[in-house]
């Protein structure tokens, strides 16, 4: 595909006007040509300018309270959503819309459970990596590791999974392990431990990755940090966006 062909897809995508088949082509081309990411971003920005040029319409006063009420009942932005409870007074159509979004949430929860069950019997590191690399949105980033070597994180936002691959890392002192962390908004969450062989390791991260997380590695006592929080400065930190 040349750039002009890609720009046709990118424009159609930004305007939400592609057929499902073309949308698929777009996704594949986007994965194959990261150098065109700027075009996608610019088309999306241009489309949004069309949207923001429209006259404002003030929402009804009670809508604000209803929305804040709904998020108040959740347990946080990153927690699984509590599905909004349909109100008896809502119009039939509204009820169906809420029911439909409830189905989506249940499906998403099911997908999450599926991944959970897949990692319950831990996949070999190479299958986890292969699984990520099969995704159209597979991406990776590499950083130097303090003390030598490099670490590359491979991830797929669709899967919410990440694998760290290291090369040339210094040998870890005995009794210690490398521990992986998702750092999200400044807060680290443990994502498993690993060791290297000849400086090499392929380590799938436990839990689910969110795009924008920074993947960090610290050196911790055998078994991982006893406190559940890092006890040393990270030797490498890799942003995923």
């Amino acid at each position, binding site marked *: 595909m040349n750039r002009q062909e890609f720009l046709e897809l990118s424009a159609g995508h930004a305007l939400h006007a592609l057929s499902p088949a073309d949308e698929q082509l777009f996704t594949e081309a986007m994965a194959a040509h990261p150098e065109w990411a700027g075009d996608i971003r610019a088309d999306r920005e241009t489309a949004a300018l*069309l949207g923001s040029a429209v006259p404002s319409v003030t929402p*009804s006063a009670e809508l604000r309270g209803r929305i804040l009420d709904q998020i108040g009942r959740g347990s946080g932005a990153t927690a699984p959503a509590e599905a909004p409870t349909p109100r008896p007074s809502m119009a039939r159509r509204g009820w169906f819309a809420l029911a439909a979004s409830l189905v989506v949430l249940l499906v998403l929860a099911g997908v999450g459970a599926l991944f959970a069950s897949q990692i319950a019997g831990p996949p070999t590191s190479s299958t986890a990596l292969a699984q990520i690399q099969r995704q159209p949105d597979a991406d990776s980033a590499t950083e130097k590791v303090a003390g030598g070597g490099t670490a590359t994180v491979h991830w797929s936002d669709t899967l919410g999974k990440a694998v760290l691959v290291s090369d040339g890392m210094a040998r870890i002192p005995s009794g210690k392990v490398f521990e992986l962390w998702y750092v999200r908004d400044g807060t680290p969450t443990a994502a498993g431990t690993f060791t290297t062989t000849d400086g090499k390791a392929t380590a799938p991260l436990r839990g689910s990755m*969110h795009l924008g997380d920074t993947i960090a590695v610290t050196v911790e006592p055998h078994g991982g940090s006893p406190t559940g929080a890092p006890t040393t400065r990270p030797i490498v930190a890799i942003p995923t966006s």
Partner: protein
Amino acid sequence: MLDLPPRAVIVEPVVIDGLDEPEYQPDPIDQVGLLLVRTAGGDRDAFSQLYDIMASRILGLIVRILIDRAQSEEVLQEVFLEAWQSASRFAPNKGRGRTWLLTIAHRRAVDRVRASQSASDRDLRIGRRNLGVDYDVVAEHVELRIEAEQVGSALAELSDAQRETLTLAYFGGYSQSEIATLTGAPLGTVKTRMRDGLARLRDRLGVST
């Protein structure tokens, strides 16, 4: 392997103790983006500010597409619940917060109009009103008005066919094949018009890649 370009987001000994500033470097004037980042951390105050800043603008877009006020408010509610759920997917280094929210709103409004109104209904509806956007009535905020005028004059520089294609897609919620049927143009022509029209707008409005 190490010859990577410097990354926009530098994390050097990272924020791991939670005392340092977060590692992202959002555009300082992207208020909406900053609020989204705070929302991703579960900050309900930030979320309600986000609502106060953006709700009427987003509802304006949804109403433009759906017309029906009650349905539009339902979609607005879906948009903000999605924003609350997925704010962590907003990447400040990949675009502005407003773009992120308007993209969600547009997608949801288009999905709703396709699900709830047949193409012929929309045909009649869009036929009854001006295909173009009436920019004269945009006035609340100076910033918004200037922006609307810029968009309006940029749209005016497009060919009629390009403008019609963009308008049908963005404000009518029509797919490329529906536009081909409506206008009698071959599908390939519609795709080219959409690409060239959007590219011209993008240049004219100074959106950089």
